[in-house]
């Protein structure tokens, strides 16, 4: 069977996109700019979803394409799934919200 891969686009990215479903304890090959580096999967990650390439602190900005795609709402460890449950966008927030709310509390 072919190796499972996740694509990393820019060197600075915190996440890679899984090209197939990843399961806990599997090894995924980080392709693209990741250069085939192996990494351990800690959690089920559906096809097309994102895996954390390193530990991300709560409130840290999460990068993909070398740009900010959102802010971590809780700590995320390497190998875990990054999605709406732990990453929040900053755009299009209600403008009557407080600045703290606009930044994700």
């Amino acid at each position, binding site marked *: 069977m072919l190796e499972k891969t996740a694509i990393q686009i820019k060197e600075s990215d915190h996440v890679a*996109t899984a090209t197939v479903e990843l399961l806990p304890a599997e090894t995924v090959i980080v392709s693209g700019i990741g250069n085939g580096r192996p990494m351990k999967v800690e959690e089920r990650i*559906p096809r097309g979803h994102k895996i954390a390439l390193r530990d991300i602190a709560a409130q840290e900005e999460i990068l993909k394409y070398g740009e900010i795609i*959102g802010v971590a709402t809780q700590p995320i460890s390497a190998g875990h799934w990054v999605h*709406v449950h732990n990453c929040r966008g900053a755009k299009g927030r209600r403008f009557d919200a407080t600045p703290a709310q606009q930044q994700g509390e």
Partner: protein
Amino acid sequence: MKFKGYRRADGSIGIRNHILVIPTVSCVNRVALDVASKTGAVTFMHPYGCTFDAEENTTTEDTFIGHGRHQNVGAVLVVSLGCETASARRIADAIAPSGKPVEMLVVQKAGGARSTRDAGIEIVRRLQEEIAGEPSDEGDVSELIVALECGSSDAFSGLTANPAVGEAADILVGAGGTVVLSEITEMVGAERVLWRRGKTDEIRQDLMKLIKEYEIELSMTTQDDSGVFISPGNIEGGLTTIEEKSLGCIYKAGTQPIVQIVKYGERPTEKGVVIMDTPGFDIASVTGKVAGGAHMVLFTTGKGTPTGSCIAPVLKISSNNDTFKALREDIDLSAGDVLEGTKSLKQVGEEIVELVLETANGKQAKAEYFNIQEFAIPNVSVVRKEVIHQKLAEQNDFRFQQP
């Protein structure tokens, strides 16, 4: 890079030679459809043409005019009811200066739906004889306007199909051509990248203002502060935020400078990468770019969609091979080999350019073959525009700041 097309009286070149039947109001959709289906002319069905919102009425008229003036249209028949707010006279008069034959029928004066249909069929048959001919005029790729669109995106759209279209955009722009990126909703979150791409300070600031307007509109559309502005399908597919979606979307326009920003349905006057003000809704966005003179549309999709335009080929490019296989009827090309590691983005980009030239030379897009002709204009209104401008004025400080 050359192709054979139809040179128009105004000097432009078309890649199709359609006779377009424009129903100026939804009340006469069926009449227009009957005329088109009996003759091989093209038309589109829509719910517009009678409204007291000035903004919507103008946008409707201008979008009809843009379609009538389009390079791919050889002749036009305007079908009107007679009492609608969209002015058939204004529409016909605005199309006429492009030098093509324009005829008009008014149902309330022509004796009713059936009589209008019969008169319409006769007119279209006469026009067909008038404009008949093979595409024998040589066109250059630098004369082409290619619209870029994405719809039903998945997490791979931003990794395969969009950057592959970006490679194609760079080749087309490098050859002197024009690509039109739109869907301003899907630029929210990608401001920093787009700022760097603007050719002049004025373009940069106009673009930031435009994106801010859409961001304000987005923020007003939710009741809570959930900040979720992507579709359930997007989220299921792995996209998490509007920022992530936008950053993947703008890859379609390649890497060349942004040379002009045009209004909804407005034709670019500069060559290179142009941005048009359209919403993220695919159909309204494609309709606007076609009204603005796009010869064809490169439409990337993750999950697949059949969308087409009545006068411009819409080429579907899937982000993965599974969707290509599942929707073979609707998708023209797959960028999925990039995901499987068997092709580079550059290779797929070159395949897309080849497809653009074949299509310019007359090869039918799948949406054309199946006669798929969607039409929509943005959800515009004078009232909403005022509210957005007021909000924008309240927080004007973003304008002169680099994001």
